């Protein structure tokens, strides 16, 4: 009977299924943001000059730094996965730690960027926003909505990676069972990918 249970536990673990599930979940996330990209492109067509003028208000420098930080973090999370596959627990911990640090840097940058706007009275529902013309109004609404939703995804990704961090520490996540970290890394790449689209749409395109 106990042997049967052991077989049973083996059967219920299916890493392929977990990864397939994560990929499907990533599809839904892409479609979630896809709806926003659609709305963005429609309004951009309609109010292209206003969108152009508004995008000049954003700091390309901060945006570029954040892009580099996120790309770098995607690399480190992939390196942590390789480390755990090679059973190098210490390196894996370091790389997950660096990834989390990058995520924090991204959020701090975002905080200052948003803070600057809010300091000038530019935030959804503010008096200044009500005075803007339609195109500018929509641009900044979309800016806050899209980057806000993305930041929320960064936080979700961080929580996932923190869970991985503790599991690596307690050796529940090891070179035989690392699908959780694999999925966490997949999710982190998704968060990165969405930013790769957001950055040119919001900051560069003019």
């Amino acid at each position, binding site marked *: 009977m106990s042997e049967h249970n052991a077989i049973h536990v083996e059967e219920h673990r299916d890493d392929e299924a977990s990864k397939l599930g994560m990929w499907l979940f990533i599809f839904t996330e892409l479609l979630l943001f896809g*709806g926003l990209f659609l709305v963005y492109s429609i309004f951009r067509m309609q109010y292209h000059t206003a969108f152009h003028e508004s995008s000049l208000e954003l700091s390309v420098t901060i945006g570029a730094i954040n892009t580099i930080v996120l790309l770098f973090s995607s690399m480190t999370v992939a390196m942590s996965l390789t480390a755990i596959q090679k059973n190098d627990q210490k390196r894996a911990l370091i790389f997950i730690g660096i990834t989390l640090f990058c995520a924090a840097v991204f959020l701090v940058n975002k905080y200052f960027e948003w803070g600057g706007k809010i300091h000038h009275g530019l935030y959804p529902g503010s008096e200044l926003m009500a005075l803007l013309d339609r195109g500018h109004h929509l641009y900044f609404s979309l800016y806050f909505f899209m980057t806000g939703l993305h930041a929320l995804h960064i936080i979700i990704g961080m929580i996932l990676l923190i869970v991985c961090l503790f599991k690596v520490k307690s050796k529940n996540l090891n070179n035989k069972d690392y699908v959780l970290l694999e999925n966490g890394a997949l999710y982190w790449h998704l968060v990165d990918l969405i930013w790769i689209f957001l950055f040119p749409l919001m900051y560069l395109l003019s």
Partner: protein
Amino acid sequence: MSNSTEKIEYVSYLDHKGKYKGLMAWIMATDHKKIGLLYMYSIMTFFFIGVILGLMMKVELLAPGETIMKAQTYNGVFTLHGILMIFMVVIPGLSATFGNFFLPILIGAKDVSFPKLNRFSWWIFIVGSIMAVASQLLKDGPPDSGWTFYAPYSTTTGTNVIMATAAAFVLGFSSILTGLNFIVTVHQMRAPGMRFFNMPLFPWSLYATAWIQLLATPVIGITLLMLIAERLFNIGFFDPNLGGDPLLFQHLFWIYSHPAVYVMMLPAMGVITEIIPTFCQRQIYGYKAVAISSLAIAGVGFLVWGHHMYTSGMSDEARWFFSLLTFIVAVPSAIKVFNWITTMYKGSIDVKPPFLYALTFIFLFIIGGTTGLLLGAVATNVQVHDTAFVVAHFHYIIFGGMGFAFFAAIHYWLPKMYGRMYNFKIANIALVINFIGFNLLYFPQFIIGIQGMPRRYFDYPAQFQPAQVLSSIGGFILVIGLILMVYNLVKGARSGEIAPENPWNGSTLEWTLPATPSLENFDEEPIIKENPYDYK
């Protein structure tokens, strides 16, 4: 059960003792069969709340002018009726109840791929449902935008729209997770020897449905989030005064909500495809055509949303294009109907309640489907848009189609779920009452719809009264039939005769199991047939 020679002692899933006891044993259950039952109990509860609301509208419409409620109350009642019935009853309906219970069994699996995720999706389904009901009771008053939440009215009305949309968002999340679980289950959990093309057709339809749930629901998710943000921060995505576009909301809404119609209908078609071969003792006609048509409906169904918006202001090109696509999506549905009917040809038909419900389904679905073509044609659509004709059409599809398929499924699978049988005679009587009540309730609405009775109005000119009264009488008859049906089913499940393993002489895997399956369904590796419907 006499031939249970397996090493593991057989225990019915209903008697299985787990870590938890009493109510907690249900709430914490990860067994797909128990989760299926949990969905069924909650969905039936919401269904009867929705029925009561529908009946209230029918009473209000007995006479012109104010009868039992104020116009604003009426707006709240039809909105809640819509939200309950769409998001909490028909969208999860068949896939979450019978899909959960029978998908793993039909493909020879012990459970779905992610049992805990499955439990989690039921939990958030309940959270979303509580939020939806709460939106009616909070102090700003019930939402009055209709279940469609059309902007800009929904962004400006003072009622609890935020709560209701947040509820729809949460319910959508539950739907996504169920879909995700089913796709992975079909890919990863099929028993050895079970390929895609010897899989029974109910799993096929669930697989197609799951893709729609997965790919369409995020779009409504983001749309509802935008609507909530618009209400909270005065953002103006959809408000023309702030530069937004109300048509954009309609587009985004229907990009989800039209495919959602197929989330309701595809599993219903799948159930009928299981029932008809069993009661005709005949191989399903055109197995591959039925399987592929499920995918075709799912695929083309994504491209037809514009037919809800012919009068909203679209270009002529867009209108005829959406009209063309709408006619194309009718083709795979018709293929299924032809195949069901051809399956009956030269079969040895056994007229039992599940089969009668399946026939009723086909009859009502044909009426609903052909009136759908009238609505898909631009010229007729602009005449009857937003009239009672549309109400009649979608009730024929959703209630006559999905609802009756749900009843067919309960009558078909109840002996496998509870190991007991209901009374056939009462089931047949209830079916006749339901059939008469249903047609009396909705058919007059086609006629007054063509004559110009708008939908969602609580008042009407006196000329419509005879039809409205007829329709209300039909409503009461239908409710009597439903109560009789549920009474018979509950009595059967609790104290009916003990059912044999295979009461209908079915050929799919569930009928090879004991009358109530064990916790892990297959204590021995199931033998997979090359043809799931090998009757002749």
